[in-house]
């Protein structure tokens, strides 16, 4: 049993390492004149989702389409196009879904601002609740009957003195 589990884990580890080394190998085929350009390329494709394997970026993905799109992005960079031009090119073909960071527009207002709205609502409710609690505590000094009951429980037998001997 343990042997099988080890074998499966080994196979899985091997498969993933082979996959990632393959992605790295294809990335190395892109030649850049400066390190800054290479970093710009990597930053850009890390922000773009591969539509075939949707939880991977163009930087990570081994899908053939991801490779084709890397070639496309590289070509546009070499042609001197700006990052936003390249992103517009991809969005025009594949939609906002290719962006890991969705654009701020009416359809995404709830997505972007919803959490902050909820946070403000929650904080407001919390402040109101705390204030009410403090007020109710301040407004109600302990009553005479409560005091008697308290003394009884504490074993002070009806008298309330400071000397305890």
């Amino acid at each position: 049993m343990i042997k099988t589990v080890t074998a499966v884990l080994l196979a899985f580890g091997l498969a993933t390492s082979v996959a990632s080394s393959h992605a790295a190998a294809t990335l190395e085929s892109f030649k850049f004149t400066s390190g800054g350009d290479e970093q710009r390329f990597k930053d850009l494709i890390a922000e773009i989702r591969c539509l075939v394997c949707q939880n991977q970026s163009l930087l990570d993905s081994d899908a053939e389409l991801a490779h084709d799109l890397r070639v496309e992005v590289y070509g546009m960079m070499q042609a001197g196009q700006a990052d936003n031009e390249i992103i517009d090119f991809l969005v025009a073909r594949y939609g906002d879904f290719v962006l890991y960071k969705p654009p701020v527009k009416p359809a995404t207002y709830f997505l972007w601002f919803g959490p902050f709205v909820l946070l403000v609502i929650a904080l407001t409710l919390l402040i109101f609740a705390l204030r009410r609690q403090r007020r109710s505590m301040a407004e109600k000094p302990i009553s005479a009957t409560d005091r008697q009951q308290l003394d009884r429980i504490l074993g002070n037998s009806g008298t309330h003195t400071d000397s305890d001997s």
Partner: protein
Amino acid sequence: MSRQLRYLLPLAAFLLLAGLLYRGLSLDPKLVPSPLIGKSMPAFTLPRLQDPDATLSDSDLLGEVFVLNIWATWCIACRAEHDVLLELARSGAVDIYGLNYKDQRDSAKSWLQQLGNPYVANAFDADGRTGIDWGVYGAPETFVIDRQGIIRHKHIGPLTMEVLNEEILPLLAALKAET
């Protein structure tokens, strides 16, 4: 705020969230809506599959309602939908054009010979560059284009008789009725 409402609010919030999540279960994340719908079809000029010396371009297709099917011999789902395409071609409802996507020319030709050819003509997109312009991310995909060259519908994944009868054919009839 009345007392009952205060206790019902969290319940209402929970039901809303549960409803949203339940809806999410039945959505297929693989179906990404195309931003090309309602826009002019992307331009292309490609060699034809059957005759490398002749070209097929978007302007050749303009003027009639037509269907563009993206397919390849390496695509298993394309084989599954092939009979549906043959059926659509037989019905005479529309001209079907093909974009043979990142394929081997010989395999594609023998595929059509063996399984039957529903296409009026095929463009041969060897490097997938035209596929990128059309926003293709997985074959098969099927576009419906109107007389003005506007993309009116995109079906992602294999066509079935059900999709054909319920979505494609009614849409084709409506588009043909447009002047």
